[in-house]
């Protein structure tokens, strides 16, 4: 069990080192490493099912002195999401870069990013989380700038600054917690937090830093340029996985480290911001002239849903409905990861084939790129929250909780957000169905079109019809 925990981090790390030392074998090393770390996640599944949630302090020291890794239902779901999305994106990326120098630069950074994500999802130590956060943001920034375009570099620079600012806020909270409680171990800290000023101050600065990193409205301004200017596989990774890291941490901190510290005002504030994100992100996505920008703003909106769900979860009274909402929240996060990565990969195909991603000039894409259009449609269905996607189930439970808690304003916001989402998705599809002989080259390339389609099918059919196990799983393995 414990070996597999370490392996999910070590394997991509080793892959990154090999790919850095031996750039010409990047593709082979990259795919192999992603596959192997996926297998390690699979192994972790087996051990988790056999032994239940577990933790381990590295170095053989007691937790507190040593750094603890921990795995439970939530972290393994995040790990699996990372593994699957990373695999599909890697297959896609193996043929994406036209210049070899770019490909050679991609793989080590990409593997470092995966290692950082896996490390983050497994970490049980507050400072270690800081290091993984920094590893994540540095590798993500470097990947963002990989395209070499001016806009991409500017976006990467801003992304980096914001990331640093956010981690500093987080670190300030960690420093305070250590000074008060004399430990960095999450469980040990959690045992001591309460309604005291230290816990509150730490919670505020840590949450603020993480909200900045996870781009919650109105702290989202850095996200659209970064996600829309990176190369397609990178955008997919950023939008599907990296923003989830910040959200995941907020979730962990709120529910596990500071359960007694959080005030209702704080929860309300996050709910309001989440609602703002839904409306503003969807509206901006509707206004976007480029596909990638649309997808990026859609991420802003989708993060809004996640934070609204989290706020509702925090304010719901204990009981079955609350547990069900938690599962829905996780399901929404998973669905978004698959749908958004699919969308970005599909956009990458269009950009490759049409030479641009301007929405107004996409007429006739459906005829030339049927599989890609289908992927966009399925991903779009998941983003709107329509059946047969996992997001439909998630949204159902979300609205259920909002109605049960008499949060009618949120109901309205979610409703409007869904309609706006439908509007921006079908704005694209309308053009795709349009009839116009344009210069899109027809393709039948398996590497290029299939990863997006498979990801979209996962987001819709698999998570829509095959996710009932998530709820009991989250309950028994927490």
């Amino acid at each position, binding site marked *: 069990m414990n070996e597999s925990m370490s392996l999910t981090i070590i394997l991509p790390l080793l892959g990154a080192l090999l790919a850095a030392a031996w750039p010409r074998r990047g593709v082979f090393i990259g795919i192999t490493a992603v596959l192997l770390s996926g297998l390690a996640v699979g192994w972790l599944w087996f051990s988790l099912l056999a032994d239940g949630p577990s933790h381990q302090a590295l170095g053989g020291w007691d937790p507190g002195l040593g750094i603890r890794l921990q795995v439970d239902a939530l972290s393994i779901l995040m790990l699996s999401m990372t593994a699957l999305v990373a695999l599909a994106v890697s297959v896609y990326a193996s043929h994406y870069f036209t210049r070899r120098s770019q490909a050679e630069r991609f793989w080590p950074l990409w593997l470092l990013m995966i290692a950082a994500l896996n490390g983050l999802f497994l970490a049980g130590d507050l400072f270690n989380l800081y290091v993984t956060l920094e590893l994540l943001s540095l590798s993500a920034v470097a990947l963002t700038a990989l395209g070499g375009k001016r806009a991409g570099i500017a976006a990467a620079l801003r992304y980096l600054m914001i990331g640093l600012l956010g981690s500093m806020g987080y670190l300030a909270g960690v420093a305070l917690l250590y000074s008060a409680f004399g430990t960095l171990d999450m469980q040990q800290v959690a045992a001591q937090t309460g309604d005291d000023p230290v816990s509150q101050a730490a919670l505020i600065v840590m949450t603020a830093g993480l909200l900045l990193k996870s781009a919650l409205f109105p702290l989202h301004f850095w996200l659209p340029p970064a996600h829309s200017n990176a190369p397609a596989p990178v955008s997919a990774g950023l939008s599907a996985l990296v923003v989830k890291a910040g959200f995941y941490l907020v979730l962990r901190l709120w529910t596990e480290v500071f359960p007694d510290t959080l005030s209702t005002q704080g929860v309300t504030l996050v709910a309001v911001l989440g609602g703002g994100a839904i409306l503003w992100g969807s509206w901006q996505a509707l206004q976007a002239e480029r596909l990638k920008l649309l997808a990026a703003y859609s991420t802003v909106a989708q993060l809004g849903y996640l934070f609204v769900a989290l706020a509702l979860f925090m304010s719901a009274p204990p009981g079955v409905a609350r547990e*069900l909402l938690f599962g829905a929240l996780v399901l929404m996060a998973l669905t978004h990861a698959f749908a958004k990565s699919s969308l970005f990969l599909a956009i990458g195909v269009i950009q490759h084939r049409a030479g641009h991603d301007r929405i107004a000039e996409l007429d006739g894409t459906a005829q030339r790129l049927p599989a890609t259009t289908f992927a966009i449609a399925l991903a779009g*269905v998941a983003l709107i929250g329509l059946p047969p996607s996992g997001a439909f189930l998630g949204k159902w439970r979300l609205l259920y909780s909002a109605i*049960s808690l008499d949060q009618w304003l949120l109901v309205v916001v979610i409703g409007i957000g869904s309609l706006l989402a439908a509007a921006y998705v079908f704005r694209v*599809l309308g053009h795709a169905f349009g009839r116009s002989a344009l210069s899109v080259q027809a393709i039948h390339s398996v590497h290029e079109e299939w990863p997006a389609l498979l990801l979209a099918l996962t987001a819709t059919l698999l998570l829509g019809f095959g996710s009932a196990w998530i709820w009991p799983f989250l309950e028994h393995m927490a």
Partner: protein
Amino acid sequence: MTLSNSLPALIVASSLLPGLIIFFLREGSHRLRSVLNMFGAILKLVLVAALTWGVFQDDFFETRWQLAPGLELVLHADALSVLFVNLSTLLWLVTTVYAIGYLEHSPHRSRFFGFFSLCVSATVGLALAGNMFTFVLFYELLTLSTYPLVAHKGTPEAVRGARIYLAYTLSGGLVLMLGAIWLQALVGPLEFVEGGLLSQLPDELHGQLTWIFLLLIIGLGVKAALVPLHGWLPQAMVAPAPVSALLHAVAVVKAGAFGIVRVVYDVYGIEFASDLGLLMPLGIAAAVTIVYGSIRALSQDNLKKRLAYSTVSQVSYIALGTAIFGPLGTIGGVAHLVHQGVMKITLFFAAGNYAETLGVHQVSEMNGIGRRMPLTTLAFTVGALGMIGIPPVAGFVSKWYLGSGALEAGVAHWVLPVLIASSALNAAYFLPILQRAWFRPAASSWPQENIPARRFETHASLFLPPLVTAALALLFGLFAGAYWSPVEWAGLIAEREYLR
């Protein structure tokens, strides 16, 4: 896995799987695609026949699949769903034959028939839905699978029409979903039961239940084209004729009307709905729609648009029948679900034949078309007379039951005038067409003659379907008292609703 827990799922799958395969077929594999289509349609018909037989014998068919805790996909066969499943399966078979002929040379057929199959799968799923959640799920799927069909031609008008269609139906779906979720928040996951379950709820919830009813009816009313939610229907006319047939007779509009029937009878229960005072507003909305649709139809020169407004009007007979408290009204509404389907599909097939064969789109271009295309026009005539309510076509039977139901329920003072006015208006916009088609001399040339007259007026796969459906409309009227007729089946449904 036994037949009793798998048959409903198999019925959905029998069109779903061929549809998914068709997506991946090459454009050129015409024969394979047609074989798959026909195979799916016939297989579905066989399965549905088995289901009908079983339900008639009070066998129990139900497929359950948990999607999430509290959100179960339930496919359940009861008398009402069997009626709708039969209708859509039968008409889908006919429409498939028609569509294969109609789209013989147009591009993107794999995409078209793929979505075509998905569309009917969603309709059947909706018919078999055993709870509100499942119903909403298929309701949304139906929206999604019809969008590409409406947009199929790819012209700016088609894309625009599809967008309007989508804006209406997705908003409606959202409202329906909200109502369903609210209901679930109030009473838990609710299964459809004949007679409904809500009447046991305490009085203080009645206010909320009224609001929920409003949300549900608005959500369903969009697809059922209740005024003022009908705006999409005339816009969606840009779709190819088989799609229009599907939208108007088999799937979309019908799904909305069917949903209203479901909500009133099997969620609220007709008695409870009546106690809450919900039937009267529903009936008035239906009446307004009936009259309004007919009036608008009068002034349309475009044949398909005239038919579209006629649909707006005719579908609301179903809602009207639902709103009339009493078994006769129920029989009238439910039977009209079938009757309107076979008659309207006939009309659309015929309209499609005119357009495809001769390029005739406007009523004003139809002079003397009866002599050039006698078989098609014969079918058209049967459909039109049925719509007006002239015996012995099926439409007459529905109207008869609706009228008797109104008398029985004591609401005749406003229902009968509506029925009469509507019939008069129907006559006013259908009879001139018939007069032009049969009795006026033909113009020297047709707008765009695509298919020259050889042995028959047009391809067999185009003129046979309307003849079949016209014959059905006649049969359903002539043998309304027969053992298997829609009216008898509606009687069975009414019996089960009111005897509880």
